[in-house]
């Protein structure tokens, strides 16, 4: 499947003198270009007191650079492009997809805001208000969002992964103009970024244009490395979290590994065996056979630092969370004892391979993936090794990682207890 089946896509890499990494993937099937600009700055780079600054800063970036203040969206959309950005624990991304004729304008706009952002009190206050509305929408008024926030806060004691990407409300209120300026200076430097150009553009031209627009932006002292001070958890934690909700829910997290760890592919397979599709272990057990839950999902994020492997399940009306919790634990223990069978293992690999192929459907999606691998794995080519890594996983590997990581000592459980507000 992988490289043999032609699923490796053509990419060329270059590095400018100022340290900006440039990746170009040419695909001329549409007369469009997707630009993805990754900065190695996410909420893991923050500290208490200014949590959420990475994301707030992402918002501020759309007010444009020194020569394009207030014009960014107008120029992009006026030239037929779409634009967005997103922030994770590990990085921040700016993205545009546009007709190829607009390429130089978009590069100019991106370079202008990397060179000197228009950081003003008005800009900060405007985006602060908007981000607070975003937090209310995604977390404060959403039981799913709050459980997710509480799960990371409960599971991590010292890792900077513990706070939510959007930040705490008090910290969003606290971030100052000086904080924003210092953040920009430290992280928004060419040597801390990867520019991905994908679509109707060849590598030679891509590199030349990158040099032309970004080449004179000075590099900066690299940011201090993030220290992951997370101590080893020795004993399960259980948190009852009460908030207005219609149905109880249960989230259960285990400490896992970073994306580059050799056990990561086996954990991907384990995640698929447990939670991908109606024929997965957990769906069959908790939704179909025992009818305790309305649904169950299993997630394992790929991070620079050690991430969580977690299970989230919403109960059906009238069912009890403790019953669901013990059923889930029984299923995990069973997998750790006997492992998946051959058919389950093959199914999981087929699903992972097909998902990989689907991830290549859109040119913009490929740009996003290339930037992700370059940023998190340190090399975009890691992307092309994935299918082979999954293929090499054995029943014994899956059994071993289930036994190693899905253990009670590193477990954190959030039980969402619905309350009705008093009226």
């Amino acid at each position, binding site marked *: 499947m992988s490289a043999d089946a032609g699923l490796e896509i053509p990419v060329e890499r270059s590095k400018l003198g100022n340290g900006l990494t440039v990746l170009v993937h040419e695909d001329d099937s549409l007369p469009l270009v997707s630009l993805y600009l990754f900065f190695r700055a996410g909420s893991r780079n923050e500290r208490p007191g200014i949590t959420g600054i990475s*994301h707030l800063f992402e918002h501020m970036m759309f007010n444009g650079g020194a020569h394009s203040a207030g014009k960014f969206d107008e120029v992009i959309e006026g030239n037929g492009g779409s634009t967005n950005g997103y922030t994770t624990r590990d990085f921040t991304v700016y993205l545009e*997809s546009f007709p190829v*004729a607009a390429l130089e304008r978009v590069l100019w706009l991106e370079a202008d805001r990397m060179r000197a952002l228009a950081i003003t009190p008005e800009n900060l206050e405007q985006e602060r208000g908007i981000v607070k*509305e975003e937090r209310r929408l995604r977390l404060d008024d959403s039981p799913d969002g709050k459980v997710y926030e509480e799960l990371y806060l409960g599971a991590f004691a010292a890792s900077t992964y513990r706070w939510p990407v959007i930040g705490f409300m008090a910290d969003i209120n606290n971030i100052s103009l000086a904080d924003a300026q210092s953040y920009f200076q430290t992280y928004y430097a060419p040597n801390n970024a990867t520019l991905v150009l994908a679509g109707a553009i060849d590598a030679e031209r891509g590199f030349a244009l990158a040099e032309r627009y970004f080449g004179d932006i000075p590099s900066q002292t690299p940011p201090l490395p993030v220290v992951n001070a997370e101590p080893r958890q020795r004993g399960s934690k259980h948190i009852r979290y009460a908030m207005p909700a219609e149905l109880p829910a249960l989230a259960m997290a285990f400490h896992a590994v970073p994306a580059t760890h050799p056990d990561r592919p086996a954990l991907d397979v384990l995640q698929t065996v447990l939670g991908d599709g109606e024929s997965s272990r957990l769906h069959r057990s908790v939704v179909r056979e025992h009818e305790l839950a309305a649904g169950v999902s299993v997630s394992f994020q790929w991070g620079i630092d050690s991430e969580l492997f977690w299970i989230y399940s919403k109960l059906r009306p009238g069912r009890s969370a403790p019953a669901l919790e013990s059923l889930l634990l029984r299923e995990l223990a069973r997998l750790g004892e006997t492992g998946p069978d051959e058919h389950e293992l*093959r199914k999981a690999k*087929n699903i992972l391979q097909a998902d990989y192929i689907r991830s290549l459907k859109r040119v913009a999606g490929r740009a996003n993936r290339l930037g992700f691998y370059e940023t998190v794995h340190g090399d975009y080519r890691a992307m092309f090794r994935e299918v082979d890594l999954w293929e090499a996983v054995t029943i014994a590997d899956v059994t071993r990682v289930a036994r190693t990581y899905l253990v009670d000592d590193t477990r954190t459980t959030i039980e969402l207890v619905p309350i009705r507000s008093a009226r």
Partner: protein
Amino acid sequence: MSRHFICGALLSLMVTIGCQPVILHPPRDGAGAVDTGGAALGDLLGLPPLGATAAAFTLPPVVERRLDNGLTLLIVEEHTLPLVVFSLVMPGGSAFDPPGQGGVATITADLLRKGTRSRSAEELAREIEFLGGSLAAGAGADFSNVSGEFLSKDLSRGFELFANVALHPTFPEDELRRARELMLAAIIRSREDPAAIAGRCFGAFLYGDHPYGRPASGTEASLATLDRDAVQSFYQRHYVPDGAVLVVIGDATVEQLSSAAEGAFGGWSSRAGSPPLLPLPVRVSGRRMLVVDKPDATQAHIRIGNVGIARTDPDYVPAGVTTTILGGGFGSRLVEELRVKRSLTYGAWSGFNVHRMPGDFRAGTFTKVETTGEALGVALDVLTGFANGGATVEELARAKSLRTGQHPRQLETQGALAASIASLFAYGLPRSDIEAYPGRVMGVTLEDVRRIAATYVPTEDAAIVIVGPADTIAAQLAEFGPIELTTPDQCAQPGGPSAVR
């Protein structure tokens, strides 16, 4: 966490042309685009917009065959990735749920994968997932659909599974019970989501007893009484080949794709009359305002709208441009006034929700409880200003560029192309609409925008729904008119809002 509010997430249950254009367009023309070439750095901003890149987009060849049983096959060879997709669309969706059987179209679609003449629900799930494939069925308001995707090496097995669920479901009693319980749990759970409540309650409030106002999931009351006879009968009436379309796109030859499709669906022989035309929805006259009480919410969600246009309306393309000016993309008026200037919200949008019969126009936003009245006031002012004054030259130019520039991306995947081709067929529209789209967008005039805004953007006649803590927001809303009050679990019940105050 992303900076832009993705309006599609709020509108996931409907086809809209404000947030997520539904006419999608054919790419496949790599040549023809040129660069601005060497403008001095500082000059780039001063350049006029490039204008539409309305190059001659060509749809890949579509092979059309009509089978003896009345099914139309549309086949496209496409070799970018080793995948094959298919999309079967049949007239008759949730707007055709018989009285008292709300949810039957949805549950019928759910049950296709839950047991056939040759396989149990578990066997189907295992076989489909073993191939890394997907197979899904659903019901929109006017149509039911079955769609899927497999690796092209699994073409015949994928087709056999697809035909097996579409043509030979058995609707086992125990699976009906499970599906009903899960849908009930989903209805209860959806009351945790203010945006979902707003969408559901707005539909019921605007359309009243019209079928477009009924939730596709049904209600707790209707689900409780849904039995196997109801499901069988919906299936027999609406899952028929005559009038249906099957689009197949993928990495195989036309001969391979079409023989797989004919082999699987040629023997499909059931018959039924085509669904009757629905009545015309009735416009709301005067301003009607409904508050849906959610006492614990920290934000209020606002929807404002009235009856709009049908998918087949000649104004469909200009209406899409018009609503892009008002509430599409980042440079729209609603975003500028509510978000950029006042930081009242994270998202604001507008769109035409189109159906076979006229659907609706609606605008939406959300804000912290304390600024509910202010946000509603600003939104109404923006709508009124637009309805009365139309757009500027610059606004029209931005909307045209955005629509035409993003257009090829919307047909980029096999699945998107299949859905678009199937949708045009289902509405009786020509496939040439795809290639005509950029030219039509560029032909929209300020006068078109003025006329459409004046006709469909609500000012005095409007349905307004606000989800939030009634006790806190009622006083802020007093200046906008009388309030009707309901709750999330009552708003879509027959009889509508429970009290007026």
